[in-house]
């Protein structure tokens, strides 16, 4: 059997329609629920520690000297996948070119920071590799 007949015979329209509805509804509900997380987490926190004055997340605003590594890690999250597009090993010039090509700010400084954070490492052959999780 072929064509619309086959679709009808195998209950195709119902499957496709029901399936589409279910997955859309499901993810819409999940999306709504996680949009309520901040409120819910707040509620939870208030219940748990009734003392209202101390800020619940003291680490939310880290002191200045800690900020830098955090920003590097943030930048790494952003640039990492792009850098992966250069392949496992790449030359430093290729990285500079990529950063310039994509108009990223301060390529030199960013690269130096990555280097210092151990995210960027040099192989024995002089090429560079990107280590997502420096050990």
């Amino acid at each position, binding site marked *: 059997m072929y*064509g619309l007949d*086959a679709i009808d015979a195998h209950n195709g329209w119902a499957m496709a329609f029901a399936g589409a509805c*279910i997955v859309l509804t499901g993810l819409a509900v999940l999306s709504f*629920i*996680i949009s309520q997380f901040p409120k*819910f987490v707040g509620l939870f926190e208030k219940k748990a520690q009734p003392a209202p004055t101390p800020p619940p997340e003291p680490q939310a605003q880290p002191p200045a000297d800690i900020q830098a590594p955090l920003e590097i890690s943030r930048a790494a*999250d952003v640039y990492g996948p792009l850098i992966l597009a250069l392949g496992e090993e790449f030359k430093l010039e290729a990285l500079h070119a990529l950063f310039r090509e994509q108009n990223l700010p301060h390529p030199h400084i960013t690269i130096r920071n990555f280097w210092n954070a151990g995210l960027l490492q040099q192989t024995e052959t002089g090429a560079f590799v990107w280590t997502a999780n420096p050990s």
Partner: protein
Amino acid sequence: MELLLQFLQNTGYYLADYRHVLMILVGATFIYLSIAKEYEPLLLLPIGFGILVGNVPFFKGFGLGIYEDNSVLHYLYFGVTSGCYPSIVFLGLGAMTDFSSLLARPKLMLLGAAAQMGIFFTLLSALALGFLPKEAASIAIIGGADGPTSIFLTAKLAPHLIGPIAIAAYSYMALIPIIQPPIMRLLTTRSERRIHMPDPRPVSRKELLFFPIVGLLLCCFLAPASIPLLGTFFFGNLMKVSGVVDRLAKTASTAIVDTATIFLGFTVGASTQADVFLTGKSIGIFFLGAVAFSIATGSGVLFAKILNLFLKEKINPLLGAAGVSAVPGSAREVHLVGQKEDPNNFLLMHAMACNSSGVIGSAICAGILWSFNMG
């Protein structure tokens, strides 16, 4: 001499025909794409070499081929047919996925849902082309652009099609840089492509902790048949964000997922034994796979445009294309297309959010299609 002659009649040289040569060329192409073009090498290289191994011609009946009991390949392939490798890969994926940008902007999850429409359109097309319902469902899931999910569903519904469906799914995932950009540009205006997305808000640890638990309960209650994929996926993610079992999370995201990836790719490749693979159905599957990918990309983009009709803060509709979940290929394409219009537009993080909700979306779809076709 007789023995030597008999041996020579059992060599691959004697047994080979044009189909083996054809498949070996396919395998070599996969290897070439993975090494020279670096298209998804973690997937294509094992599959490509597996195709070579699976298409060495051999005398049947002595426990050598992947479809013969007692062969080593058969035992290793059991992880595919049982659905264990996909589950284990999802464990590792969960332990590697960062949901913080999704949590910061939950609306993006809708794009991950919309991109699954390709699945249902392909379901209809496959039925229309004469495939049986279980086959059609397995083919349709290619539109989810998620290799392990496709393999899992096919193993459950139409195990005889694992080879072609896996090859189609991974082929198109590797070809994303060629398939997606034209569709994205066709369906969006220049000004839409230039929409900037504001930086996501910081997400607290508690939110990250709640997400895998709520996600599991919500998605798996809705579609219990997605438990084997989403159960391990959210488990891996909880191990990652909990911070109290770092050694387990690290092993899950390295040794465990690598091992499953190696054997999954290698045996799926080897399952493309010429006489099983080269059938009319495979051609139909490849054709439908291309349809599935294109519709998925298009429906994600169009849904974002529809959403924009109701939203104050507009979403860049390119992000819709990242809902197809081919991690992180499609997110990178979205980013690159966006940057071509405006080099100051950074869509990557937002696209990753769509990507990860696309993974969840297609796992749910697999659950739905499986339960529609059980029994």
